[in-house]
């Protein structure tokens, strides 16, 4: 049984090919202004990488923000459902999944079969997602990848007063004027966003093992702050960006087994 999962993300389209539970190939394309075209391109890439043709694929399921527009897909599943199946496939001990992207933060509680039991979302507010760290790194005039690393060098905890990305920017500027070391400011920023994510996770319950996926998982400063806030060590799956596509492919295989 060969299935495909297409994750129609807002920024990137990810495609993954699954054969009997094993990942055969994966590819991604920037969504840009033509996400359907990008999806078709990514799909072709994945097919050629695994030397398959479209007819070899038994079922295709989609997920992601733009899943309703996915080409070729027979059906779609929610991002939350896809994340749960995708993560537990490679890490069956996971019961809580945290996904933090640029615009949204999500917390999912799942069971050992990877079925979603509860979920919470932080959306439409930049302070609750990756946009916050991006904006602060700009305010501090430090490149984003460095921003995470320097926060690890700080041992000082400064609470941030502002709970809004716009106000926090002014606060960062004031801290700089007060000669606060950049590393301490960076840590304050990461602690602040991590604390908001932790509060969200509390609403579904912090049950080990906890996994972290999404763009912000690549930020070591955030991961460190998150671990301290959760009082646990989060698992960051490899190729985390393909979690959604993997989950969709798994569900496609399951649903088609019954046919």
């Amino acid at each position: 049984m060969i299935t495909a999962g297409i994750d129609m993300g807002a920024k990137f389209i990810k495609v993954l090919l699954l054969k009997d539970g094993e990942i055969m190939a994966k590819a991604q394309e920037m969504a840009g202004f033509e996400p359907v075209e990008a999806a078709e391109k990514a799909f072709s890439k994945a097919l050629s990488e695994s030397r398959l043709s479209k007819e070899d694929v038994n079922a295709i399921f989609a997920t992601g923000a733009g899943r309703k527009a996915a080409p070729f897909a027979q059906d779609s599943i929610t991002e939350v459902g896809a994340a749960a199946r995708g993560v537990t496939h490679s890490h069956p001990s996971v019961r809580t999944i945290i996904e933090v992207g640029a615009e949204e933060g999500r917390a999912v509680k799942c069971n050992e079969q990877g079925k979603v039991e509860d979920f919470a979302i932080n959306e439409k507010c930049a302070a609750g997602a990756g946009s916050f760290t991006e904006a602060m790194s700009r305010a501090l005039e430090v490149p984003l990848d460095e921003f995470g690393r320097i926060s690890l060098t700080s041992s000082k905890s400064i609470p941030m007063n502002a709970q809004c990305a716009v106000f926090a920017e002014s606060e960062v500027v004031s801290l700089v004027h007060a000669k606060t070391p950049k590393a301490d400011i960076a840590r304050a920023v990461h602690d602040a966003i991590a604390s908001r994510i932790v509060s969200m996770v509390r609403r579904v319950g912090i049950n080990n093992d906890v996994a972290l996926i999404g763009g912000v998982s690549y930020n070591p400063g955030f991961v460190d702050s998150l671990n301290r806030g959760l009082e646990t060590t989060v698992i960051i799956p490899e190729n985390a960006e393909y979690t959604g596509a993997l989950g969709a492919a798994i569900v496609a295989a399951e649903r088609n087994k019954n046919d």
Partner: protein
Amino acid sequence: MKANYGYLDGSGEFFITIDTDLCIECSHHGCVDACPVGMFEIIVDDYDDKVAAIKEEHRKKVKYDCSACKPVSDRPPLPCVEACTPGAITHSW
């Protein structure tokens, strides 16, 4: 007087409302100890009345700070609301 502590942001409206006219009647102020996060305090307001209020450090984070008492499923009655005998406290979410 109705004092609304909290905010409206992109993700929704989050307000804890304290009806100070009802609050004045209370002498034991159970809300202060009932809240597991310690969000309440007793203040003397601008009109010289002794009433409950949400602490400054929690005002802008009520959605986050209240999350332990507001799980997604099987939400129990809120401890602060239960402890308030005059019924002065309401949550908008």
